């Protein structure tokens, strides 16, 4: 049973390897984002004449942002969501529906597989960061394990949220505008470019009531040791709860939508 989904992962990996330039794009995306952030925060620290902001030294903040951009890239889905929406719109989804495979699981594996090059490149970048800035990332082996688990939850949760929006295409045909709007707002609200810990308290309180907290901040806080280990359990339970809720809503929307589907084209 699991073998068929690992096969989907593998074929997407093979597919991703056909386009080696994408690996370079991933590195450029991270480094250019980090460069802009460096300039902005450097200016803020210098102009304010402060050593730290809300508990972050300049170096700690840069490492936090660096990892946030990386996690943000891994949870975003331009390719998979675009292909899924196009599939529903044009009838290409038929090729998945006629096979004994779950549409949700198949595309989740695709979602991971498409990003496989990024996983490889980002792992190398992380390794270099750990060597160059010892002590700022992964204070202990537990943090590495915690980070991998929280990152897995973040990727699944993010995909589940995309899935709900994608399934709306069964009714509206074209929902890419919704995905674009979501992606743009998520860059800010999930903390991909500015740590949500720096947000005003009332905004942060609202974000804590949503799954957004678990998309970027949760894994990055574990990796940087900012979240005390005694808080992990509660946050893992809540994040898994969000995964179940989003998966359940996605299944409902899909099951309703597929009845509406008209298998366009041939």
């Amino acid at each position, binding site marked *: 049973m699991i073998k068929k989904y690992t096969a989907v992962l593998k074929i997407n990996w093979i597919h991703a390897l056909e386009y080696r330039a994408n690996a370079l794009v991933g590195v450029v995306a991270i480094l250019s984002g980090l460069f802009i952030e460096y300039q902005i925060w450097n200016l803020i620290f210098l102009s304010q004449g402060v050593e730290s902001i809300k508990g972050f030294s300049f170096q700690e903040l840069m490492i936090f942002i660096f990892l946030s951009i990386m996690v943000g890239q891994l949870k975003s889905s331009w390719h998979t969501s675009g292909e899924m929406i196009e599939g529903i719109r044009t009838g290409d989804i*038929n090729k998945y529906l006629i096979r004994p*495979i779950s549409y949700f699981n198949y595309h989740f594996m695709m979602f991971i597989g498409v990003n496989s090059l990024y996983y490889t490149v980002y792992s190398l970048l992380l390794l270099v960061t750990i060597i160059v800035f010892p002590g700022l990332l992964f204070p202990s082996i537990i943090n590495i394990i915690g980070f991998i688990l929280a990152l897995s939850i973040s990727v699944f949760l993010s995909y589940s949220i995309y899935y709900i929006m994608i399934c709306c295409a069964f009714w509206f045909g074209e929902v890419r505008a919704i995905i674009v709007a979501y992606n743009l707002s998520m860059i800010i609200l999930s903390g991909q470019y500015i740590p949500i810990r720096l947000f005003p308290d009332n905004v942060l309180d609202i974000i804590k009531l949503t799954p957004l907290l678990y998309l970027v901040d949760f894994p990055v806080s574990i990796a940087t040791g900012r979240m005390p280990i005694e808080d992990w359990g509660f946050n893992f339970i809540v994040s898994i709860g969000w995964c179940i809720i989003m998966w359940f809503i996605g299944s409902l929307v899909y099951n309703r939508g597929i009845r509406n589907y008209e298998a366009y084209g041939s």
Partner: protein
Amino acid sequence: MYIKISNLSKSFKMFKRSAGLKGALSSFFNRKYSHFFALKNIDLELKSGEILGILGENGAGKTTLIKLIVGLLHPTNGNVNVDGYNPWKRNHEYLRKVSVVMGQKNQLWWDIPASESFLLNKHIYQIEDSEFESTMNELVDLLDVRDKLDVQVRRLSLGERMKMEIIAALLHKPALILLDEPTLGLDVISQSKIRDFVRYYNKEYNATFIITSHYTKDIQEMCERVLVLHKGSQIYDGKFSDLIKSINPRRRLFFEFNEGFDESLLEELKAVYNFNVSNNILTAELSENDLKALLIKLLDKFSPNSMSFEDLPVEETMRSFFINPDQYLK
């Protein structure tokens, strides 16, 4: 695989708008929907191992019927029962027994070799290693594409790609195979290869085939039985040869005379039968009985150099049928 379709109908909701910016704006605020029936009250029973051809003009409902049988669409009314399965529940057990090839849609991974897609299907359909190897080798040799296995799909010709699509669809040895326009856009040799293959596969594995095609020759060569759809309704279900006979019961006779034959002896026959004589060859297009009667009389008066019979081209016959099907089926 046994198939029973009863009273099957499918309607689609469509919206219409007039052309231009005004039409687009008006439709944006006040969209008008209408329903149209793509299929109406279809009844059909199919036994295991049968090859059924579905004929019809564009928009007759052929592809809609295929999609309903495989479970891509939910019927508006009626039932489809395939070996006890309700297709639109998309039970994985059921999907492991069927396969669909849609001539206009690519099911293979475009940027990587077809062999990778075959491996993926191996896992999706949970095919044993040894079975996968033997089936793939058999299909690859039958369709003569061994040297193309490791070529990116996007670099294959249309015919090669269709053959790869068919291999991918048959690796799990489905009992029911639905081919929607399998020879569309293919050259004559590829078309013939696919027809031969369908006949072989049907005989060898007792697989049930449902085939739609715009090429009447496809249907003539592969399917003994046809279902004819016209504007969503079923207007004929039976032997293809019977349909052709009922539309155009005439055949063609070629009778070649010896050099220096006496053409005046034909005068009497010309008054009764319609035929032409040119370059010592008599050509007549008549019903089976008239043709027999004419031939007896000809043989009585002449000794032929050669003679032959020919069925009229089915494409022409079907074309005239679809112009006004009611005329032939009353």
